[in-house]
């Protein structure tokens, strides 16, 4: 199991490194259209062929990896931090604080996000540059994706609060802040980590759907989301190389799960 984890770690590091070095590794710019070679199969010139506009799929995958592997975890981290703050506070404090925080969480879960996102789009300027669109997209994902994990963390906090070691610590006069930082947080960390890992692929796919509302990563910037979105119109006769973004997503997510200790996820 250890060697498997090590292999996954190496693979993940290699993919991250490749993504970060996209500017040097990519044989072509992500936006360059080789229109005479639109939809071309893999060749020496185009390692993974070209997309419908003749853009080099390998280069786009590299640039897309850089973007998604940096920003999806960042958005997941933001969502998990908010979730931890809300969930742990609610679970630990109890009483009216818990009621208030959980009502806000319920409200977040029940809001029809489609309409809210439409309003957000209406307020944003149309001339948003691709990089700005990326920042907006992942901030939105991070700010909107915390409510589910917050409930999980609140339940876990509730359970841990009544554990023997917590009762003993309290009986020995341990202050609430120390109790939280020394006893509660270390035990909640695996659950928070699991919520984080679960959020990463969800955010990658959500980003593709946000594009439908004019909020996703803007053309011509590639992301895993819009590369995967392109598979929706993929013809069954297209070559298997067009599935490369999907294969990479599966590899990365498998690696993530192998890298994270199993007991963390099972908790």
């Amino acid at each position, binding site marked *: 199991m250890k060697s498997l984890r090590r292999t996954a770690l190496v693979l993940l590091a290699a993919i991250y490194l490749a993504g970060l070095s996209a500017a040097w590794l990519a044989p072509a710019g992500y936006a360059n259209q080789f229109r005479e070679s639109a939809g071309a199969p893999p060749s020496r010139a185009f390692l993974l062929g070209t997309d419908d506009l003749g853009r080099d799929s390998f280069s786009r995958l590299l640039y897309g990896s850089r973007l998604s592997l940096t920003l999806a975890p960042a958005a997941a981290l933001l969502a998990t931090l908010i979730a931890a703050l809300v969930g742990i506070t609610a679970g630990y404090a109890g009483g009216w604080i818990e009621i208030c925080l959980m009502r806000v969480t319920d409200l977040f879960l029940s809001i029809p996000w489609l309409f809210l996102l439409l309003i957000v789009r209406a307020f944003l300027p149309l*001339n948003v540059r691709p990089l700005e669109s990326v920042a907006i997209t992942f901030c939105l994902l991070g700010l909107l994706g915390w409510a589910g994990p917050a409930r999980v963390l609140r339940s876990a906090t509730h359970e841990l609060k009544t554990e023997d070691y917590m009762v003993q610590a309290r009986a020995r006069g341990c202050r609430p802040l120390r109790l939280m930082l020394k006893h509660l947080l270390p035990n909640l960390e695996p659950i928070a980590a699991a919520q984080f890992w679960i959020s990463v692929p969800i955010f990658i796919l959500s980003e593709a759907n946000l594009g439908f509302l*004019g909020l996703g990563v803007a053309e011509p910037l590639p992301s895993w989301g819009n590369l995967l979105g392109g598979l929706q119109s993929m013809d069954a006769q297209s070559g298997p190389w067009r599935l490369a973004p999907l294969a990479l997503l599966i590899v990365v997510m498998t690696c993530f799960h192998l890298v994270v200790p199993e007991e963390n996820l099972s908790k």
Partner: protein
Amino acid sequence: MRRVCILLALLAAAGASARELRFCLRADPKTFNPLEVSEEPDEIIRYLTGGVLIRMNRLTQQLEGELAESWKVSATGRVDFKLRPGVRFSDGAPLTADDVVFTLRTLLDPASHSPAGDPFRVGKGTVTVSALGGSKVAVVFPTPIAGVERLFDQVVISNARALEKSTRPAEMPVLGPYRVAEYRAGSYVLLGRNPFYWKKDGKGRQLPYIDAIRLPIQQNRDLELLRFIGGDLDLINKMDADSFNRLAAKQPAAARNAGRSLESEQMWFNQVARAPMAAYKKEWFTSREFRRAVSLAINRADIARVVFKGRAAPALGPVSPANKFWFNAALKPEAYDPAAALDALARIGFHLDGAALRDRRGKAVEFSVITNSGNKARERIASMMQQDLARIGIRLNVVTLDFASLIERMTRTFDYESCLLGLVNVDLDPSAQMNIWLSSAANHPWNPGQPTPETAWEAEIDRLMRAQAREASPGRRKTAFDRVQEIVRDQAPVLYLVDKDSLSAISESLGNVSPAVLDPQTFWNIERLYFRAPASGSGR
């Protein structure tokens, strides 16, 4: 008793084996009332089951008498119809002049809210309809309407009895080749032959040839194609280029391209004075030279080749060559010439600063184009324009929006800079496009609802459009509309990008199919379609 049962079972089996024509509806029909039709599935049912006074031949684009044996249009705005004798509804009742009067009066009644009635209510005053005795009907318009006869192609003749039964379609008497036999919501509509249909073929045989039509309700176009390839469907209309090429690879004989369609892709700049946009951008967009330069920098041939896989052609102007009479053949294709575009921009004070184009104030030229999300072809066109315009230093930001937001921005808030959309001219006559070309019209794309024309060339278009609408002579109308097309090409308020091909799938076992560019492409002559005998392949 047992013999009777066996006989009935055999008859049922024979009925089941009789081949039905099958093609998909993209959604459930909203209504079976022919006067309330507004959506495509309803229109298909109306076309297949309805009888009209005059029908436009979808292939020749000429009007032909159907229920009207003859008609005469006078210069004063009066149309006289003489009904064909011996026509009967599907329940056996004869067609009378009173039925025609009832239909037209119902259609024209504002309380009926009939979409088919709207084109008849263009002028001031009321339209009067009267039976003149025998089989003659007169329709008198308050003012002459150019090309008024074509409006009757959409008017299905009915009667009070039929409209009462429109909620029970299987009982509704009709005058078309088919009648509704069964409707299962969300599943299918089954049409059976109208036993009293008036048309016969050259050999005196009763039409239609095919006994029944089954219309499965299928929204997913990929599944529709798979069902066609599997032999479960006989026709597909309005295919996109990707699906068409997929079919052509598998069944080349079934993939039919009828040439240029009436559907085009186009882009325009927002020229609304009160639009929430920087003044310098308004100055760019209202400049003819700027618009012409952008037009020169767009590679239309590449869009046709890459996005539509060669199933489209660079557009020449506002009217597609598919519109045989009204197309202005004198218009030349727009050149793709980035160098000429830069020269033209330089003449009005723009200059290249490194890779960025700047106006005479030093403002970098950057604007956004909005289009509807989910339309892959349009998203690809926008990406290609982005690269084309980058070559002359213009930064184009592509924004995809849901359709409702797009319409809101285009028609109410005017909060956009340029827009990329498609347009289909369903009516060939320019009078049907007054709501687009008149500067005061709500659908005037680049600057709607102008109290008075804001530019001299828009005033000229208004004058020409009104003149052609008053004129009776087709030749003089054509001259006026040709001039409108020339002005639009010259001023470039709309950049016409490509005209798409009319693509369809037709089962090889079907005979007499002649796909046309007008709706309904493949089954416009439904009563004459037939299934070839498996071995003989003989025609009718």
